């Protein structure tokens, strides 16, 4: 008797995805959908679609979705989570959305320790607008706004979001994974599941950074794209868990003190 061992998850709708061939967004969508299905939270999840290539995520995910202004995903997620604490809230964002325009919202949501999950897809470029330099563009990498390669004297250095947020007290789970090889896809799914579980257990802020390929705006074939992730991106953005709930201190409400008493 033949058995289906792999099928399309119920966490995704049947609509065709309009991403370029070889784009990593599709894999990340599937992983989030599978995790929602496995945890049984599809009917009480609210997702935040970003501005960027995945702006149509509201059509693809089989849960309630909302579309905020550019970069304001964590702020809108904070509002939803505080009004509806019984819901699972996740914000799906790209690197231009999260690390450039929405950096303030991201850092402050993390510093407040909001009980939300952020799925951060890092492809080192602005995809939808046509391949401009993003905050995560690697040094020497060519884009339409850095045609001679990113020069650190003019454009500065790439931002490592996980390392940056790991310096804060509040985040409960921070991890960087990639989706360019089957083994990495499995690790990415584990990390996303853990991030959702951290939120379900009310333990704090969780963010999973996923290195993804953008063959169209890197001007390479999909196969060269996965090579670029492995040889160029992973050495600069090391994979791994940057903060886990095991190392986190218990949050206790401090006694109110006057300024004079503290010195």
């Amino acid at each position, binding site marked *: 008797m033949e058995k289906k*061992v792999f*099928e399309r998850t119920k966490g995704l709708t049947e609509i065709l995805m309009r991403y370029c061939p070889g784009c990593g*967004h599709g894999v990340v969508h599937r992983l989030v959908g599978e995790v929602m299905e496995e945890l049984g939270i599809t009917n009480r999840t609210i997702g935040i679609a970003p501005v960027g290539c995945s702006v149509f995520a509201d059509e693809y995910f089989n849960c309630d979705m909302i579309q905020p202004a550019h970069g304001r995903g964590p702020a809108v997620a904070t509002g939803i989570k505080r009004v509806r604490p019984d819901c699972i809230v996740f914000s799906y964002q790209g690197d231009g959305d999260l690390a450039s325009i929405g950096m303030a919202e991201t850092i402050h949501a993390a510093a407040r320790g909001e009980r939300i999950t952020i799925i951060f897809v890092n492809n080192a470029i602005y995809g939808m607008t046509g391949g401009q330099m993003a905050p995560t563009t690697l040094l020497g990498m060519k884009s339409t706004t850095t045609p001679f390669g990113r020069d650190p004297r003019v454009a500065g250095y790439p931002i490592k979001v996980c390392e940056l947020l790991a310096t804060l007290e509040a985040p409960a789970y921070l991890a960087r994974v990639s989706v360019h090889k089957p083994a990495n*896809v499995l690790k990415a799914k584990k990390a996303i599941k853990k991030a959702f579980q951290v939120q379900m257990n009310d333990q704090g802020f969780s963010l999973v950074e996923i290195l993804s390929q953008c063959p169209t705006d890197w001007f390479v074939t999909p196969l060269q794209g996965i090579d670029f992730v492995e040889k160029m991106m992973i050495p600069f953005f090391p994979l791994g868990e940057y903060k886990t709930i095991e190392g986190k201190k218990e949050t206790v409400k401090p006694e109110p003190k006057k300024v004079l008493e503290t010195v």
Partner: protein
Amino acid sequence: MPRIEVDTIRCKGCELCVVACPYKVIGMSKKFASTGYYPAVMVKPEKCTGCTLCALVCPDVAIEVYK
């Protein structure tokens, strides 16, 4: 007999499944689909083990695996 089924409407011919398969079961079709892309097909169906590695990397969730 393990086998995969490729949804030719969803497949965009990115060839990520071709390099993911350890037994080189998958190749690209010579005929293009209604979308204009050349979809993935099984070229050595007898070698498929149903390991689902191709389906794991497929960005368009176009592959279903039967075992």
